[in-house]
């Protein structure tokens, strides 16, 4: 087993990984940019070292700095987390050169499976159904348009190097083709430095269901079942659950076998996710492979009882998959919501800033994976993910009830969060019936909001009394300390000052 692991990431995932290391008795080394000195992963790591300015391309994306720290501090392995360098084959290569074990797939498997077109070719070769479309990027828009006509509209253009919905355009009809092509290519160029796009048949209202696979270095590949991730806002997952409300044991077996075939054909090792689109008749089509740990891995952990990060570490250390895996049956139900620092009442504007107070939910069936704490300033430079709130229970109904209860307990002030979005979704009859698809949430958000639940009697009175009491306490604090003008909050003022110092 490893002695010391460098965690090349930040935020909740860095915390998640270092917790696994600690349980395994492995020393942890964290890294941090200039704005992350106070981050939770730095506080919890055994050692932590600065790696540069706030901009990630000058810090978290600098391979040579990471390798340098790993070598100097005597790390024998590196975990990339997700995002940043997690799917960049240059990182496993640099690790190998430096004699540090990369906790993830080999560079060749990343290249052979990670890009959308390479993944699709591999899927075809390994007899995994794919959405009708082109395998290769198309250079000529006229050629692409005639293909689209043959395939039948709607079609979708996607960036070869893409992800997160960037460089992606749905083309409803022939007239819209030329404009969509131009937009997709220029967006792809801006986002990824690569304008190439490919073409696919567009499925109407599909579900996004993915299979978690694990492969060891000795040729065993297993499926750990599916996750349903159909609730997405602008192509970004916001709620994930396992098992899927529509997957039958038979479909689970078929999808699992397809994913395993694909991983085996790609020479895959370690944790990976094979994403599928599933249509209304429960036909599944290969979408892409994520050659890393997923944000939503906890829901699989909750229904399998496995710790996927520890499993990743064990496989990287050369261990065999520790279980005979013929068929996994998920136990109970798990659901995750992604809490972001953004304001759902104001067009999901990002809301970085200082967390003035926070009460985290606990109790039966609740798990909170997060990288924040009371008093922490959420920086504006990175992804707005604050916490992942995960609930599990014996049934989907019990899980949803627990999640709702936990969301009611969760309070955070100082910044805005998208908690109210989840309160709304978890009360929607369609969601409760499991009738969801990848456009469902975007459509829901265009509908008028249901009338707010009337506050119970006395709520306004209590609010008014609290406001007055708070005012009294504030003036007592300021008269005790000085005769300076009363301030809204010392914390807030301090936070602003720090931010000024930083950005000026």
């Amino acid at each position, binding site marked *: 087993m490893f002695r010391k692991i460098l965690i090349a990431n930040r935020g909740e995932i860095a915390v998640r990984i270092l917790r696994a290391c600690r349980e395994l008795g492995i020393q942890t080394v964290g890294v941090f940019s200039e704005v992350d000195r106070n981050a939770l992963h730095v506080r919890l790591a055994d050692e932590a070292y600065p790696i540069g300015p706030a901009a990630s391309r000058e810090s978290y994306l600098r391979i040579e700095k990471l390798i340098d720290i790993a070598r100097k501090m005597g790390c024998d392995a590196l975990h990339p987390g997700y995002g940043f360098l997690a799917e960049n084959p240059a990182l496993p290569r640099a690790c190998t050169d430096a004699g540090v074990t990369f906790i993830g797939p080999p560079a060749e498997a990343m290249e052979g499976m990670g890009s959308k077109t390479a993944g699709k070719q591999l899927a075809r070769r390994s007899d995994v159904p794919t959405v009708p479309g082109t395998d290769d990027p198309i250079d000529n828009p006229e050629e692409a348009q005639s293909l689209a006509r043959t395939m039948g509209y709607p079609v979708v253009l996607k960036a070869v190097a893409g992800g997160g919905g960037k460089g992606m355009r749905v083309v409803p009809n022939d007239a819209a083709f030329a404009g969509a092509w131009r937009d997709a290519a220029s967006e792809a160029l801006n986002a990824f430095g690569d304008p190439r796009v490919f073409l696919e048949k567009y499925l109407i209202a599909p579900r996004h269901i993915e299979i978690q696979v694990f492969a060891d270095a000795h040729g065993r590949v297993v499926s750990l079942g599916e996750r349903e991730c159909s609730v997405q806002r602008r192509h970004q997952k916001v709620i994930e659950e396992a098992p899927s409300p529509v997957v039958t044991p038979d479909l689970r077996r078929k999808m699992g076998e397809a994913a395993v075939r694909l991983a085996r054909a790609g020479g895959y090792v370690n944790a990976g996710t094979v994403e599928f689109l599933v249509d209304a008749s429960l036909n599944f089509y290969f979408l892409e492979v994520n050659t890393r740990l997923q944000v939503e891995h906890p829901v699989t952990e909750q229904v399998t009882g496995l710790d996927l990060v520890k499993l990743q570490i064990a496989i990287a250390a050369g261990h065999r998959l520790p279980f005979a895996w013929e068929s996994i049956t998920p136990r109970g139900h798990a659901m995750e919501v992604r809490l972001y620092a953004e304001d759902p009442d104001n067009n999901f504007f990002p809301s*970085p*800033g200082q967390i003035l107070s926070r009460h985290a939910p606990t109790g039966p069936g609740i798990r909170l994976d997060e990288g924040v704490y009371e008093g922490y300033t959420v920086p504006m430079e990175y992804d707005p993910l604050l916490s992942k709130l995960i609930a599990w229970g014996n049934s989907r109904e019990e899980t949803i009830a627990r999640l709702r209860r936990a969301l009611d307990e969760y309070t955070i*002030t100082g910044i805005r969060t998208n908690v109210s979005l989840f309160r709304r979704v978890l009360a929607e009859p369609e969601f409760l019936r499991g009738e969801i698809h990848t456009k469902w949430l975007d459509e829901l958000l265009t509908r008028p909001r249901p009338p707010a639940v009337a*506050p119970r009697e006395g709520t306004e009175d209590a609010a008014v*009394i*609290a*406001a007055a009491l708070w005012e009294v306490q504030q003036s007592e604090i300021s008269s005790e300390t000085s005769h300076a003008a009363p301030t*809204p909050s010392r914390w807030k003022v301090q936070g602003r000052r720090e931010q000024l110092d930083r950005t000026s």
Partner: protein
Amino acid sequence: MKFEVQLKSSSGQVKKRVVELEREASRYRVKLDGEPVNADATQIAPSTISVLLNGQSFEVHITPSLDGTIKLQTGPHEFTAELQDPRAWQGRKHGASEAEGRQQIVAPMPGKVIRLLVRVGDEVEAGQGLLVVEAMKMQNEIRSPKTGKVERLQVKEGQAVNAGEVLCVVG
């Protein structure tokens, strides 16, 4: 201590209430709109207050805003309150209620100004984009709250701004 509280609910309804707090040992006696009420209010964390009102338990979380109002959160409900001590010479500024007249447009979050969409002297419509602020990898258009004329632009492209910082003035 006596306060006038303007309480605005998220639906926009505004109510004026009067609260009197009279210290009694370690607690307060509370009067609401002149009537004594059975309330036990206590501060349990710097910005969290627990209120037992006729035995009904409420927890209220408080966030002060830059415009002098305070935000109250209790469960899924939110209110904005403006407090005035009637004995004070000058009350708090009526920042939030100033719907007409000259408008200061402030940054809703810390970020970086990446584009100015208007120039000083431009006539703008309510809802028209004034400038674009980038934060957390997202570009956000800041729009004019009213129809009028851009009187001042306080920021340049590329400039970092803090939440609450005045970006421009529309008169």
